[in-house]
């Protein structure tokens, strides 16, 4: 059996080597080169001393945070109510369906909705506020990105909630907890793993959504993703692009570390132990 299994692994291990490890090394290497291909620390020096880059990084982080908070605030109650409905499967399907529409199409919809003479502005005019510059603003980026990320936040939270043993909620009530206490002391802590998974699923992509900033946020570079795209595809400064990429990867690891579920790992270990017995 052992030989067969090793053979099974060959294409997979080749994939890991070629498409996981090598690209990471290459982007790291590239970040230490200048446009002539020579080794240099210049990119990092530029990044560290240029107010533009630092501001953009903070900005990107700030927007990702805002998007995460907004989606979380909308998604948690949605997931919670969803878990109480009768036709859960149908509702879930309805949540999932929009994620199957290409995100560019959804973004494109907002170009129409938010344009100077678009429906939203027609509505604003109708209620007497008058047309506003909605498109190409930072808040429109926030709106569209949150819209796109909502289902990705709802689903992990929903899964955590339905996995919660209803007996625990009953036990909490039985022991005299009010609804709010039950929620804050039992339900929320026990569904935190879902929230963390949701944060991972939303925060990291939000750092890099360059197409939305391009289409909705105007041509201003306000996220790390846009900066990378700009350096790779427009200014052809791959070295600097890679440097920002490395920064993004580092940020990603920090998020992963902060939201990693230790309990889950522990559970895996227990399962493993069972298997070996």
């Amino acid at each position, binding site marked *: 059996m052992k030989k067969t299994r090793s053979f099974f692994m060959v294409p997979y291990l080749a994939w890991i080597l070629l498409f996981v490890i090598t690209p990471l090394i290459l982007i790291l290497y590239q970040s230490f080169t200048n446009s002539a291909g020579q080794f240099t620390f210049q990119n990092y020096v530029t990044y560290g001393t240029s107010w533009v880059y630092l501001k953009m990084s903070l900005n990107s982080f700030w927007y990702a945070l805002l998007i995460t908070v907004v989606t979380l605030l909308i998604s948690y109650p949605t997931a919670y109510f969803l878990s109480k409905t009768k036709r859960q499967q149908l509702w879930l399907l309805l949540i*999932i369906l929009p994620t199957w529409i290409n995100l560019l199409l959804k973004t494109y919809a907002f170009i129409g909705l938010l344009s100077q003479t678009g429906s939203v502005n027609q509505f604003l005019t109708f209620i007497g506020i008058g047309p506003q510059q909605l498109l190409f603003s930072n808040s429109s980026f926030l709106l569209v990105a949150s819209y796109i990320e909502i289902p990705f936040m709802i689903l992990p939270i929903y899964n955590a909630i*339905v996995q919660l043993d209803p007996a625990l909620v009953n036990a909490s009530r039985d022991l005299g907890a009010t609804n709010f206490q039950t929620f804050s002391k039992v339900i929320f802590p026990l569904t935190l793993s879902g929230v963390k998974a949701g944060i991972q699923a939303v925060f990291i992509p939000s750092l890099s959504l360059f197409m939305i900033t391009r289409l909705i946020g105007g041509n201003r570079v306000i996220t790390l993703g846009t900066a990378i795209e700009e350096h790779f*595809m427009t200014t052809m400064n*791959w070295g600097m692009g890679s440097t920002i990429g490395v920064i993004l990867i580092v940020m990603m690891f920090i998020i992963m570390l902060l939201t990693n579920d230790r309990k889950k790992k522990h559970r895996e270990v227990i399962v493993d132990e069972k298997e070996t017995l």
Partner: protein
Amino acid sequence: MKKKHFSTIYLVFVFLLLYIPIFYLIFYSFNKGGDMNHFTGFTWQHYAELFADKRMIIIVLNTLLVALLSSLIATLVGTMGAIGISARRQRKVKSALLTLNNVLMVSPDVIIGASFLILFTALGISLGFGSVLISHIAFSIPIVVLLVLPKVNEMDSSLINAAMDLGATRWQTFSRVIVPFIAPGIFSGFFMAFTYSLDDFAVTFFVTGNGFATLAVEIYSRARQGISLEINALSAVMFVFALILVVGYYFIEQYSQSRRHKKKSGKATLGTEVMLP
């Protein structure tokens, strides 16, 4: 009762939020007026334009071809990888492999796109159909592994022992017990890989070069030029396509679940969990 009311209203509100942009797009795809602001009359004209657009049709076919090929290959490699990972005894090796597997799952698309671009350039692979296909295979493999692995792990080692005990050779055990058992995982892996490929924009955008385009890339370049109701028509078509796929998947899942748990009233949440592209 009052609370029930509130939760229903809240859910309906969220669903409206999710669907308004999509229906907005579809609604205006029938607009004679030519923009997304004022509906002046019903027309099929934009659909006629879409289906007469040879370039668009070739792009759609290319997109499907890439999706089909990449998901088939990714399913093969990923399934073998999942079986291999599961067979590892040492916990450290297992978790190291899983961590490497998940790198591409959590990496932002821009990082994958940029690093693959560097990789292809370093290897001297010209950008086009080949590079896009390879990239799609590469980023689809981890999701296949993640979907097949639980099935492989779920398989009690006593099932394999039972097969051997009853006289099955290694190959017979593999083909008659292991593969049929993990088949649902393989199918959902293939399905997800397929939708990942269809849905991808950012990675393709980086590695596609000039001559070759997938649907997402085409939409992006057209949307940057402003509103064209042909895109609306396209999104309506894609919405219907997605609807058919999702509903089809849902029913297949329901059917196979009810076959498996005719008597157990297990919730069919697992199926929907994996439906996120």
